[in-house]
């Protein structure tokens, strides 16, 4: 029933109005309905009662006239009859007319003065054994209740009296206007009261709505005063409990987040330190060892006369040279000392130079305004992000060209890495890729920066990094 098309239509209609309009509408509609209903009903009952009384009055007066007219008619005292009718008319303001018809059908006396509306006679002719006969006559002056009573069992004719409904109509009109006036007054009072009530009822609802919107904006400090212990008051209390719990949860989350980033920062710092140490170790210890090994092998080669041995030594020296290069590369890969020594620009130039050598991707580096060194954690982070991005491009993008833009603004540093590869859906990247992207983002966020990826399949990819100074 509640999901019938009728109700759907009803809710679409009712839902288009605010609660205030609805309450006001209900009050006004109720007042109107009540007013109209009462007016109609009271009018009907009043009319019915008054008409009944008018009919009873008509019968009573007609019978009185008939009883008193009997002797007058029998002794032909027409003047007394006329006086009787006049007296009757004077005593009954609603009496429109009275007349007496003799046994032969002629009018013996009447209250019309000069002349008589002759068509009236035939309208209501009683039989001799009737107690009375009442009909409703439509006249040019409005409805008239016409009562006929036989005189002396009809042997002396009959008496007719007509009572006009005009006074009833006047009373009804007066009553109706009174009721309508009362209805309007009561409605006006009701509307004012309803307006006040609506304000009282909807104020907490509107406050709740505003507070809920604030909570939506992650403002969990909202607390409302529950005005009353009604449903809305209970809702307010529940809302307050919810914001308290949300605030607590938010605080816990923020603390966890802070711990996590601190931990991450430490992990990354430790990792970098470890890399730096290993790189230095490789460079200083292993590199030195390999270099002296090569020098010794060179000297051995010069001292050695045996050509076969000489060849063997030369092979060893070359192996040592290759291993030295491998160690060097590994060292640079782990942590280019140039990053610490000469800064981000030099490190990136060096890295891209190496990158070009190892991959088919044409990379273009543009650095603007970076004459001064940046803070070390920022340099490391930016270097690692660019490194990770270019590694990803080489692995997945099938790109021909890529470009790296690094720009220092007064208050921030911006980096843009772009490629013309196959692109990807950042939300649908597979787990490994997502982890890589996540690491990049984490690094940016540790510096209070932001990392944005714009890409879609077939459209290449652009990564924006902004870090405040």
């Amino acid at each position: 029933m509640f999901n019938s098309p009728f109700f759907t239509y009803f809710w679409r209609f009712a839902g288009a109005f605010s609660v205030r309009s609805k309450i006001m509408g209900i009050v006004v509609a109720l007042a109107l309905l009540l007013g109209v209903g009462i007016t109609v009903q009271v009018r009907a009952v009043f009319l019915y009662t008054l008409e009944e009384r008018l009919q009873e009055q008509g019968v009573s007066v007609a019978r009185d006239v008939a009883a008193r007219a009997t002797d007058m008619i029998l002794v032909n005292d027409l003047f007394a009859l006329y006086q009787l009718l006049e007296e009757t008319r004077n005593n009954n303001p609603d009496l429109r007319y009275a007349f007496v018809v003799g046994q032969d059908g002629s009018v013996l006396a009447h209250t019309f003065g000069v002349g008589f509306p002759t068509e009236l006679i035939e309208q209501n002719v009683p039989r001799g054994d009737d107690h009375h006969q009442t009909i409703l006559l439509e006249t040019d002056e409005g409805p008239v209740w016409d009562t006929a009573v036989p005189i002396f069992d009809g042997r002396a004719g009959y008496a007719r009296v007509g009572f006009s409904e005009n006074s009833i109509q006047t009373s009804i009109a007066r009553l109706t206007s009174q009721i309508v006036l009362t209805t309007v007054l009561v409605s006006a009072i009701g509307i004012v009261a309803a307006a006040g009530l609506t304000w009282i009822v909807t104020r907490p609802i509107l406050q709740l709505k505003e507070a809920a919107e604030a909570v939506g904006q992650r403002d969990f400090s909202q607390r409302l005063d529950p005005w009353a212990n009604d449903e809305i008051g209970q809702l307010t209390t529940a809302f307050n409990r919810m914001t308290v719990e949300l605030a607590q949860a938010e605080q816990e989350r923020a603390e966890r987040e802070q711990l996590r980033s601190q931990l991450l920062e430490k992990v990354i710092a430790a990792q970098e330190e470890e890399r730096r140490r290993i790189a230095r170790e490789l460079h200083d210890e292993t590199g030195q060892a390999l270099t002296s090994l090569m020098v010794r092998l060179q000297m051995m080669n010069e001292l050695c006369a045996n050509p076969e041995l000489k060849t063997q030594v030369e092979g060893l020296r070359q192996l040592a040279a290759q291993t030295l290069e491998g160690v060097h590369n590994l060292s640079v890969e782990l942590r280019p000392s140039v990053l610490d020594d000469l800064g981000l620009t030099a490190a990136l130039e060096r890295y891209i130079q190496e990158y070009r050598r190892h991959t088919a991707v044409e990379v273009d580096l543009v650095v603007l305004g970076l004459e001064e060194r940046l803070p070390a954690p920022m340099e490391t982070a930016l270097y690692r992000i660019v490194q990770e991005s270019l590694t990803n491009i080489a692995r997945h993008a099938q790109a021909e060209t890529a470009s790296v833009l690094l720009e220092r603004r007064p208050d921030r540093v911006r980096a843009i890495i772009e490629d013309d590869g196959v692109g990807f859906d950042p939300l649908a990247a597979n787990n490994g890729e997502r982890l890589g992207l996540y690491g990049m983002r984490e690094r940016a966020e540790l510096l209070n920066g932001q990392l944005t990826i714009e890409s879609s399949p077939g459209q290449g990819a652009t990564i924006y990094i902004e870090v405040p100074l």
Partner: protein
Amino acid sequence: MRNEGRRTRDERNERPLFLLIVALFLLVGCGRPTETAVVNLSDLRPLAEPEATTVKPLRVAVAAIISPRGTVDSYTPLLEYLQQELDRPVELVQRRTYGEINDLIEAGEIDLAFVCTSAYVVGKREFDMQLLLAPRVQGDTVYYSLLIVPADSPAQNMEDLRGAIFAFTDPISTSGRNYPVWLVQQMGETPESFFSRTFHTYSHDDVIRAVANRVADGAAVDSLVYAFALEREPELAAQTRVIHQSPPFGIPPVVVNPDARPQLMAELRDVLLAMPHNPAGRAALQAAGIDDFVPIEDEAYDSVRTLETAVNLAVSD
């Protein structure tokens, strides 16, 4: 299919609402008979004069010895009998006083009249009202004036009614006015000095009711009417008491106007005299409280004349 089912259900839901609205309108409209004749009450026209009847009705007057309604009840069968026997319409004419009837008879407006004794005496003297017949009641053509008082009244005779309220019938009634006035005059008084207050009821049955209901402390009444009234309203017997009866007077006669055609008089006489000889006539006589009709002579009313003269002389003194 689903939509159709839903529509049917919605229609079913709307039907009671519709019926409710219709019922409301019916409720408002009820209580009014549907009479739709429209009459123009300001369209006043002169009333048509009664059409002149082709057959002149026989106009029969009955003096207001008893009340107009009582007269209609008592005399209607007799008039209907006359109408049938004479084969012409008969019209009953009543007036409030004896005098008005006498005037009508004198003017020739009345063909046949049942008048009271004194009205006859006056009519005979003034315009030669003609006697036709006299009714016989309880075997005789006389009646009496009875002095009546409420049943619980201590009064035993007229003397005891000094200072009382006394009701007369008609100003020229023998039994209802002249005889009691004569009684008062015998005591050297006038009605005005003897009674505290007097009034006229014009008919005899009303005077009995006046005494029965103690509107009057005493009254004089036609013995025929009294007997007839007691017969029809036995409770009156318990409420009234007769304390005095007058000498006999000639019974109220049946008369015709002085210019009545002899043929009509003969015809009327024949019809009235023949009444006891057929059932319809007997029933009509019984309703009027009459045994039959008999011829009567003017001398029968001499005692009435004597009384009237005595009373009028006393009044003119």
